[in-house]
């Protein structure tokens, strides 16, 4: 499949996912800067193409497992912004009733098996979900998103091997945003492309443009089709970037030091997934601009609603401390 084969409906669907992530994350950045969110938030701005493109290639009953930078994946899989924002504000109406926070949002109803605060921690879990689909004889697939940092964890290597040995329906989607926190990936691995590691496990390794939502969709759709047909896992390396720092507010820890040049930061900013897709739609006259503008208004309103919902939601009761423990 090439980008030109994608239907207009699907393009609008992918655009909507990218836009919803972007507007949500912009709001989160603002709230965090105002001191209105507890804990840590890791924003997905700049990487939206990956989650949106991949999730657009999935069915509702497919599984995804996410990372500490997980807001985008929840939204891309169809998550509810109200319950997400409430979770970020640690309210009782949040996805996890205030017990998970930003790095542990899950929505099992939509196959979103959770974000994960441990780098690489979610990868084996996705293999288990793929194993489960194989075991039950369904054609569901499981996707694990992870970063370049996780590609150096043992869990990544063990999972690739296990999924490959068992030919499980798993997509390993590496979001190579080029930094493990503040350490450039190139300084901690002696290879240029993480996709090369697929070879060592006997599975396809594909490099994808991680700022182009439609390219991500086509690459994912092919890997999903292979997985559904019982042909086993694929490693997709999405070359992408993060717009901001590792976590919001973390600039304070840098104490004036820099870890990437202004030129690099600016170049990254110009490789913008939302802008990229917007321009593609405009240049090819695929969707009327008024439609995109009204969509933006709808999304902005939905985000505003999520903030109102979260703010007006109650704090968790102290009694809930001992709920959700043993079954």
């Amino acid at each position, binding site marked *: 499949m090439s980008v030109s084969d994608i239907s207009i409906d699907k393009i609008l669907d992918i655009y909507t996912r990218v836009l919803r992530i972007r507007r949500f994350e912009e709001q989160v950045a603002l709230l965090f800067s105002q001191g209105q969110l507890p804990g840590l938030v890791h924003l997905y701005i700049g990487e939206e193409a990956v989650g949106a493109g991949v999730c657009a290639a999935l069915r509702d009953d497919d599984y995804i497992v996410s990372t500490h930078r997980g807001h985008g994946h929840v939204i891309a899989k169809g998550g509810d912004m109200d319950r997400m924002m409430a979770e970020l504000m640690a309210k009782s109406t949040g996805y996890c009733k205030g017990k998970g926070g930003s790095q542990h949002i899950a929505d099992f109803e939509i196959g979103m098996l959770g974000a994960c605060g441990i780098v690489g921690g979610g990868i*084996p879990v996705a293999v288990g979900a793929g194993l489960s689909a194989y075991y039950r004889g369904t054609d569901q697939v499981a996707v694990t998103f992870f970063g370049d940092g996780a590609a150096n964890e043992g869990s990544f290597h063990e999972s690739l091997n*296990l999924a490959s040995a068992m030919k499980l329906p798993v997509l390993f989607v590496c979001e190579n945003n080029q930094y493990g926190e503040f350490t450039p990936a190139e300084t901690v691995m002696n290879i240029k492309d993480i996709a090369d590691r697929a070879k060592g496990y006997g599975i396809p390794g594909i490099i994808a443009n991680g700022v182009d939502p439609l390219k991500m969709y086509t690459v994912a759709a092919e890997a999903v089709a292979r997985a559904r047909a019982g042909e086993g896992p694929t490693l997709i390396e999405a070359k992408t970037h993060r717009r901001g720092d590792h976590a919001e507010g973390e600039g304070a820890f840098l104490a004036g030091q820099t870890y990437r040049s202004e030129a690099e930061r600016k170049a990254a900013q110009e490789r913008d997934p939302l802008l990229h897709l917007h321009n593609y739609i405009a240049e090819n006259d695929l969707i009327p601009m008024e439609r995109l503008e009204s969509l933006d208004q709808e999304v902005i309103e939905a985000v505003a609603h999520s903030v109102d919902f979260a703010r007006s939601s109650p704090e968790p009761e102290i009694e809930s401390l001992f709920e959700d423990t043993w079954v």
Partner: protein
Amino acid sequence: MPRKTYIAAINEALMEEMRRDKNVFLMGEDVRLGVFAGTRGLHAEFGDRRVIDSPISELGVAGAGVGAAATGLRPIIDLMFGSFLYLALDQIANQAGAMRYMFGGQATLPIVYMTQNGGGIGAGPHHSQPVHPFFMNMPLIKVVTPSTPYDVKGLLKAAIRDDNPVVFLNQLTLGGRRGEVPDEEYVIPLGQGDIKREGSDVTICTAGLMVHHSLKAAETLAKEGIEVEVVDLRTLSPWDETLVLESVAKTGRFVAVDESYPTCGAASEWAATVAEKAFSHLKAPVQRVTNKPVPMPASPLLEKAVIPSSDEIVAAVKKTL
């Protein structure tokens, strides 16, 4: 009642539960062949799909169990030796042990991590770590360590049916031990201790192999007219506090015997609880008998000196008199 070995009882429990529930499957290194015989014969009946020989990949396999359980299956993950569980700790502690809670109750994780705990075979530290206190320290993981063939069968069946992650610790040194195991179906609820010997003078709280060392000590003491009550907790988390406190209320003397280290070990937990909640019944300070705080040496002679012996238990009991 038929007499069967501990390992045969494990085998029966697995066989029965896999027949009972098609969502139960077994995964681990060499589970087809069944190196310790506990899993032997399962592959012939249940095939490749339900009896999976995995790569030696503890972290990956433990995590695959989490994902499979979260999506409706009931995995039994065989990790062979307790020491190997440390390779899988992220998946057991951070994922299996936290997921249900941190996702606000969305996840149900019926997983059994089955392994051989502790020493006694001269295999050295990498095959002999007593790992149970680690997992007792994780609030949402159940920990089971059966001492007899009867118990291991009933408890393993309960563990497989339990909807929570369970670390199920067998002991190699108990594998050949025989005991009465009925052919009829039975299940022993997790969290229920068992009085293995009644006595009125001193309470010993223990589990696993140490039950047998304690029973031997009790026999010795009985010859001197000292009647020891041996409480076998069977489940270490959650543990049967009530049974222990009732026994202490009766005897007024307490010895905790555990095959792990003194610092933050199981014996420390039991002793602290008794001191806290049954102080008024105590006629003497509580005593702990534990492993010596060194890695498990390979020499059978040295290893024997690390693990609590019945002589040490006798001495500890006498200190309370």
